[in-house]
């Protein structure tokens, strides 16, 4: 897990309380941390340097120096600046030409061009009621044309008939001509992946561009990309005069710094992001989400999306109902543990989940407390083992567990009676909390959550009761999930 920029700036500025004023040195130290954060997020170095300079100019101003919480202030400046750089202007497709409007898709190998072509076709057909044709100019990769043909069928748009042996420029001309004659509004040209260094292939796509005069030339790029984003974006922009960028695999867990690199280098807006393998997983780009991710300041939307991947919705629904009705028993607790483990496995452990929650002001402290309390996945595993050693009756009615039975359960699960007691106490606290929640209703609970967040380091002992991990699944995510 990366340390968040918040943590780092927090420690840079923590001495400030004593000193009382921001020195030039402090700003320099803060800028170093920002540089580190951006590099860890794969923002390309030249872009990082530029960015840091710009932020420094803004940060050295009075406002920051005199503000009470300079770390928060700097983070805000950085975050705003990033969001602004990533997408100040509205990024719509420009298709206002005499039809057919041509969209040319280009990019490196394996970034997701063909899938994005299918998604874009579906988007234009469904959302903008366009008559869309797609054509694959990929004569390089085996079965690439076949792939687009299948996708076209799936989304219900026309695919230019495949003619074996035709070369990309020929296919492109044929596509535009066919689209014009048959009255299509848009024709999307999918191309083979190519390396910026491959002159022959770069010339070929240039020729395609010249022959078809596209209204949109989109560079498709992958959110996982590293430092090479600068070279690649530059080369493609020089060759093709790009009009936009599509960022794919935003549903992964990469920090997505390449988005910033490419945006800055080309000056082209990021027009869409790809958020899944399904053909409707194409969204408008959300600069603030990527900014948050780049800075490691948490991505609530991402967390929610991940949680919904991990969590069986029916199961969660059932749990929520049980909680509300107060019928929650040990079996339900077990089910929750399973879901938390799944989610944590996908988020880099429990502390990974916490890392995605913004506004936890001092993650380090929380992490330390988690460490101190041995709060990792193995704790959950142990607690699972305890519940699994109970009889069905005991699980439904934990009050049955008296001394003898506790001993048996402890033995069966390879734990101690103390551990069993701890779990039972947690269970009780969860029950109490749920009763409280029922009284508070939905609004009250949100308020409680907010209070909790603001308390920061108080997480493990917070009003959610029960403490982690029992408390978290009960009160917050994912158990509390269906309440939203």
């Amino acid at each position, binding site marked *: 897990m990366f340390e968040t920029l918040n943590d780092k700036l927090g420690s840079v500025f923590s001495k400030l309380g004593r000193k009382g004023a921001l020195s030039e040195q402090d700003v320099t130290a803060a800028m170093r941390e920002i540089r580190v954060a951006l590099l860890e997020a794969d923002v390309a170095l030249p872009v990082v340097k530029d960015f840091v300079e710009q932020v420094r100019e803004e940060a050295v101003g009075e406002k920051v120096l005199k503000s009470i919480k300079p770390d928060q202030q700097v983070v805000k400046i950085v975050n705003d600046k990033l969001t602004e750089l990533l997408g100040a202007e509205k990024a719509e497709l420009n298709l206002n030409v005499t039809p057919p409007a041509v969209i040319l898709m280009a990019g490196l190998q394996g970034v997701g061009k063909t899938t994005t072509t299918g998604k874009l076709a579906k988007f234009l057909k469904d959302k903008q009621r366009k008559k869309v044709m797609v054509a694959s100019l990929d004569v390089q990769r085996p079965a690439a044309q076949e792939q687009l043909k299948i996708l076209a069928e799936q989304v219900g748009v026309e695919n230019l008939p495949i003619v074996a042996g035709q070369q990309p420029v020929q296919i492109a001309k044929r596509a535009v001509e066919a689209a014009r004659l048959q009255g299509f509004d848009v024709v999307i040209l999918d191309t083979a992946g190519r390396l910026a*260094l491959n002159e022959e292939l770069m010339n070929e796509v240039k020729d395609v561009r010249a022959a078809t005069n596209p209204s949109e030339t989109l560079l498709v790029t992958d959110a996982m990309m590293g430092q090479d984003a600068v070279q*690649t974006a530059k080369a493609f922009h020089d060759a093709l005069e790009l009009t936009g960028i599509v960022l794919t695999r935003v549903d992964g*867990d990469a920090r997505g710094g390449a988005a910033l690199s490419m945006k800055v280098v080309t000056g082209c807006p990021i027009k869409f992001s790809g958020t899944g393998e399904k053909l409707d997983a194409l969204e408008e780009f959300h600069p603030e989400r990527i900014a948050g991710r780049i800075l490691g300041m948490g991505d609530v939307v991402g967390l929610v999306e991940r949680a919904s991947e991990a969590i069986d919705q029916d199961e969660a629904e059932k749990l929520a109902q049980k909680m509300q009705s107060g019928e929650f028993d040990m079996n339900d607790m077990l089910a929750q543990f399973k879901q938390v483990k799944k989610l944590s496995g996908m988020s880099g452990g429990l502390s990974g989940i916490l890392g995605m929650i913004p506004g936890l002001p001092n993650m380090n402290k929380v992490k330390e407390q988690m460490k101190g309390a041995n709060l990792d996945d193995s704790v959950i595993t142990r607690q699972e083992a305890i519940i699994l050693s109970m009889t069905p009756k005991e699980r439904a009615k934990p009050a049955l567990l008296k001394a003898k039975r506790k001993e048996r359960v402890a033995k069966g699960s390879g734990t101690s009676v103390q551990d069993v007691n701890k779990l039972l106490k947690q269970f009780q606290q969860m029950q109490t909390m749920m009763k409280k929640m029922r009284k508070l209703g939905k609004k009250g609970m949100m308020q409680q959550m907010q209070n909790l967040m603001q308390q920061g380091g108080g997480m493990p002992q917070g009003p959610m009761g029960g403490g982690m991990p029992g408390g978290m699944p009960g009160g917050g995510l994912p158990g509390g999930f269906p309440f939203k």
Partner: protein
Amino acid sequence: MKGFFKKLGSALTKSSTKLSSGITDIVTKRKLDHDALEALEELLITSDLGLETSSHLVEQLSKKRFNKEVSDAEVKEVLSEGVNEILVKCEKPLNITANPHVIVMTGVNGVGKTTTIAKLAKKFKDEGKSVMLAAGDTFRAAAGEQLEVWAQRLGLDVYKKEAGSDAAALAFEAYAKAKEDGTDIILVDTAGRLHNKAGLMDELKKIIRVLKKHDESAPHHCLLVLDATTGQNTHAQLKAFQEMVDVNGLIITKLDGSAKGGSIVGLANEFEVPIYFLGVGEGFDDLQEFNAEAFSKALLSLV
């Protein structure tokens, strides 16, 4: 071997020109002071080595040469030695240990799994082994067809079922067929999947599980394909795939591009996983055995 140096060397030289001319600038202008070291660190960072590994390498250099007048070649030599030291423990031959020997190819979407299968198949075939391909990507449109085209080009058998079939069942049957035919090696393609999708990772686990029903030691190799253009996310990928399916080898693709794949230096530092091959193009011959020294030198443009 010559081909390797040539292809990787020239590929990485193209991409390393900046790295190396950068070093020339830094070092001939002044002796190795703090500023020069910082500039060197930045140059490593631009090759995707990541902050930690870059600072570690530069620190090493600093210990040896700080405040001394140093030549361009010397700095490169020391840095590439440092890289080599980290990478050399990942240099291992891929041994065929069973019959049939099962190799499962995994990785996120688009990294080059299917193409690499074709390359490996070609290599094994050239070594006189019998090879079968299993079209375990039953999800992506035309994935099976893609592998089939490669199989045709190479004159190999491919075990394939209709799109949407159960990949685990396919792998299970492919093994039985290979066993029956006395095939030496099965290469199992799988659908690309993001490592943070639990459902998809479970499906991959299932493929591994059913193969074990045939042979407890299968898959003998579960290889993760990484794309050289990927930045620091390779760490998360390797970590997740290793945890979920016991990845025991890496292949790095697309090293013929301007990306240098430097993140593997950091990976080698963190994980004990052999790096078997490098992909240096789209054809079935564009595969090179991983050689730590050659890679380290190429990374710093010493070849």
